[in-house]
């Protein structure tokens, strides 16, 4: 017994000594962070991360080959700890989640005939993925088999559905998918994702300037997941209440159902879901990435500025909005009247955005109260110019400076300021008023004048109703409210009385000639057709552009490139970076007067570029971008299997009631109508859609 003990002790001592000497002889310097990182991992050696054990994973993290969230077992706390050890941008510690971007599935079962082995990879290897859709999900579920966490199952439509709660972001499904449809990404990745040519996108989502996943949120409405629908919209558009009211919904023009029937009333559904959140009184939580310590100044608190600030804040940056007006909202507050977008709705929406931790500086004007030099000195790393288009174009007619002559934006802003109690100056209007122009501002002016009690209100436009750039629904509403339209009329001169007040508008009749650069037929004057209208107030609303008076000699902004329309130039329309590398721009300041939804999309695009700039990455457009293009195979000439089913009409206040006050005139559809409208949606993808059969 004693020998046995002695022998084992001796053997142990020999082995220990050899190992001890070997550890000196074969010593290899190892980055001390490897063991620190390893200590923060789960220590399970499960290999789920794709590396051979925790030490390999730790080594990969230190070598920069893996993200801090490499450990799929230890969760977000481990990721944050690893990020701290590595001194990495904590944003990268966001959890990875898997998503299936294709909702095709069995709807496209007839697109291929295959009876081979039950595997997407086999199908792709044998036949190159026999399916007309170049990206479509094959639905044989390799991703489901690859998932060891039971987080993916086959949905009722025959395509895999990811359970986000169970998904640990290990990426096994992404590796298994031969069609690149299953993707793992962080929240920030999703916010920075823009539509691409090889995405699974419906025509409406391709058209939307904010790139909202329209078919997804309509589908969520259909299944009663209203909170999910709000989050889907908010992933791309933070101003859903405003857009739900004022967006001219270009998406509906490309609605696949509209080819055979009436398009789905997408914007009414957006408004329904946005109002659901507001009326519910409970804000749906919005997640933000870990703070990055970078500061961004957003100049202009309109839709572009708010959108840019929202996305930058969600990406973890410290954002301050500077605005020259007393309240945020820009043109959607001061240019859009109360009856289209109630101020309390706007307040609620803006409050939700500011709640993310965005700071504001109100009543400060760029070039007067502060300048780029002071912002740079205050430590701002980047600047976004979302200054809007606040400067009305001049009419260029004699007498336009007489008393009683206004410009559209000036009139609407003064009225809004007084209405909100920010200015004591009341808005004085005439009895017989004319608004010159055919855009939305002109319509807003006439409808406002009507509500303020003007007896006769005219719209004077130099082309015909067909060429009016205003939204059709707005034109129709103005007609119903008794606005008189004078088409093919170009103002020549404003005549005044002896006191310098407006008395008459002289205009010349036009006829339409050949189309001009805008594609609209150019109006040509008819000689000797001068006509007079008796008026006491004239508002010109013929267009607007940015006020770039801040471009003073000797200032940093003196070198800022601007266009001949006074808009801010960008190196690339997709990156929106100006010729001064740390300055970015979007919205009306970049495009000229345009749609709210265009400004929101621009704000997000600029936020992406600013994020790339702040994180030291190359500012390049999204590869394979779909910017203002369509996927040719997704645009159909005819659509089979549609049963005609009328579109839900927009409920509105009766005309006699609405012209008496600034009560909201367009109303929200009922839940029953919303569900009916959602069911009209064909849930289109690239080439798949649900038939009405």
């Amino acid at each position, binding site marked *: 017994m004693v*020998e046995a003990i002695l022998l*084992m002790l001796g053997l142990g001592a020999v082995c220990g000594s*050899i190992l001890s000497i070997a550890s000196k002889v*074969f010593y290899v310097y190892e980055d001390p962070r490897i063991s620190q990182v390893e200590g923060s991992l789960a220590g399970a050696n499960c290999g789920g991360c794709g590396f051979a*054990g925790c030490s*390999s994973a730790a080594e990969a993290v230190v070598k920069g080959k893996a993200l801090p969230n490499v450990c799929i077992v230890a969760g977000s706390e481990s990721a944050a700890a690893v990020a701290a050890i590595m001194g990495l941008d904590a944003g990268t510690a966001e959890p990875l989640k898997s998503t299936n971007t294709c909702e095709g599935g069995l709807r496209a079962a007839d697109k291929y005939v295959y009876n081979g082995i039950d595997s997407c990879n*086999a199908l792709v290897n044998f036949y190159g993925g026999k399916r007309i859709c170049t990206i479509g999900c094959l639905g044989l579920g390799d991703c489901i088999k690859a998932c060891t966490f039971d987080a993916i199952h086959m949905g009722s439509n025959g395509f895999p559905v990811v359970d986000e709660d169970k998904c640990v972001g290990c990426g096994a499904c992404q590796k298994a998918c031969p069609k690149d449809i299953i993707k793992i990404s962080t929240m920030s990745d999703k916010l920075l994702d823009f539509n691409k040519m090889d995405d699974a996108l419906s025509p409406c989502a391709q058209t939307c300037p904010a790139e909202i996943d329209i078919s997804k949120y309509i589908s969520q409405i259909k299944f009663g997941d209203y909170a999910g629908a709000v989050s889907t919209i908010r992933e791309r558009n933070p101003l859903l209440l405003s857009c739900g009211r004022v967006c001219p919904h270009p998406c509906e023009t490309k609605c696949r159902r509209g080819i055979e029937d009436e398009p789905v009333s997408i914007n009414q559904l957006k408004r329904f879901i946005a109002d659901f959140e507001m009326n519910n009184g409970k804000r749906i939580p919005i997640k933000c990435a870990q703070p990055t310590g970078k500061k961004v100044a957003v100049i202009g608190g309109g839709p572009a500025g708010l959108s840019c600030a929202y996305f930058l804040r969600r990406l973890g940056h410290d954002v301050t909005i500077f605005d020259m007006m007393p309240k945020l909202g820009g043109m959607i507050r001061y240019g859009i009247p109360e009856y289209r977008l109630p101020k309390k709705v706007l307040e609620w929406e803006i409050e939700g955005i500011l709640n993310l931790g965005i700071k504001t500086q109100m009543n400060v004007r760029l070039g007067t109260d502060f300048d780029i030099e002071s912002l740079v000195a205050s430590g701002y790393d980047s600047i976004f110019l979302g200054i809007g288009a606040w400067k009305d174009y001049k009419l260029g007619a004699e007498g336009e400076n007489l008393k009683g002559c206004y410009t559209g934006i000036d009139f609407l802003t003064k009225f809004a300021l007084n209405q909100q109690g920010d200015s004591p100056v009341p808005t004085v209007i005439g009895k017989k008023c004319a608004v010159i122009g055919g855009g939305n501002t002109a319509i807003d002016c006439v409808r406002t004048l009507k509500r303020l009690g003007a007896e006769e209100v005219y719209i004077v436009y130099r082309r015909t109703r067909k060429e009016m750039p205003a939204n059709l629904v707005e034109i129709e509403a103005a007609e119903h409210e008794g606005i008189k339209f004078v088409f093919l009329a170009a103002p020549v001169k404003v005549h005044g009385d002896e006191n310098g007040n407006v008395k008459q508008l002289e205009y010349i009749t036009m006829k339409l000639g050949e189309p001009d650069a805008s594609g609209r037929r150019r109006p040509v004057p008819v000689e000797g057709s001068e006509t007079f209208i008796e008026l006491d107030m004239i508002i010109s609303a013929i267009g607007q552009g940015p006020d770039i008076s801040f471009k003073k000699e000797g200032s940093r902004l003196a070198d800022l490139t601007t266009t001949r329309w006074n808009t801010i130039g960008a190196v690339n329309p997709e990156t929106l970076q100006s010729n001064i590398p740390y300055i970015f721009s979007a919205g009306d300041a970049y495009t000229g007067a345009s749609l709210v939804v265009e400004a929101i999309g621009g704000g997000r695009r600029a936020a992406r570029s600013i994020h790339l700039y702040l994180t030291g990455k190359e500012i390049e457009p999204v590869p394979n971008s779909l910017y203002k293009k369509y996927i040719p195979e997704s645009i159909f000439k005819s659509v089979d299997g549609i049963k005609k089913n009328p579109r839900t009409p927009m409920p509105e206040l009766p005309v006699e009631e609405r012209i008496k006050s600034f009560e909201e005139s367009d109303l929200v559809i009922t839940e029953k109508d919303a569900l009916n409208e959602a069911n009209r949606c064909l849930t289109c993808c690239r080439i798949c859609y649900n038939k009405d059969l």
Partner: protein
Amino acid sequence: MTEYIVFAVSCILVNNILLAQFLGNCPFLGTSKKMETAIGMAMAVIFVLVMAGAITWATDIYILKRFDLEFLRTIAFILVIASLVQFVEMFLKKSIPALYTGLGIFLPLITTNCAVLGVCIINVQEEFTFVKALVSSFAYAAGFGLALVLFAGLRERILLARVPKPLQDTSIGLVTAGLIALAFFAFKGMA
């Protein structure tokens, strides 16, 4: 020479350590889901077992037998094999980092592999010469690798098949392992 070849064939096919002697079933099931993992494990086992075979043979002949302490074989061999693996790991990390990275997690996993220990004990129980012990170690390890790679190939195929829920993963793996073992019993007539 012929004797050694016949002996090696017997170790690889007839007395296969996994399918005839049923040792090392944990790594057999655990590392056979993917072909590349299985090949990595097979290589690591061959590498370690040849060295462990030699060193345990020497330990048995020159220490345990000399002091008449053969009953300590199991515990002594565990100690020796574990130390050997640690030593090899350190050596590879310093001298052949490419091989160290290639073997990855498998090298430390083998430390307490019963197949390795089993072969070492068979070598001394059967009183093989040193050369025969080396051949035996290599051949048993190669048999382990063969069975593992065959099994991994089958499991990759099974993954694509429609397997009833209760039989999925390890269950169907065990059933398949049993069937391969039955197939290997056909080699019994060779030796």
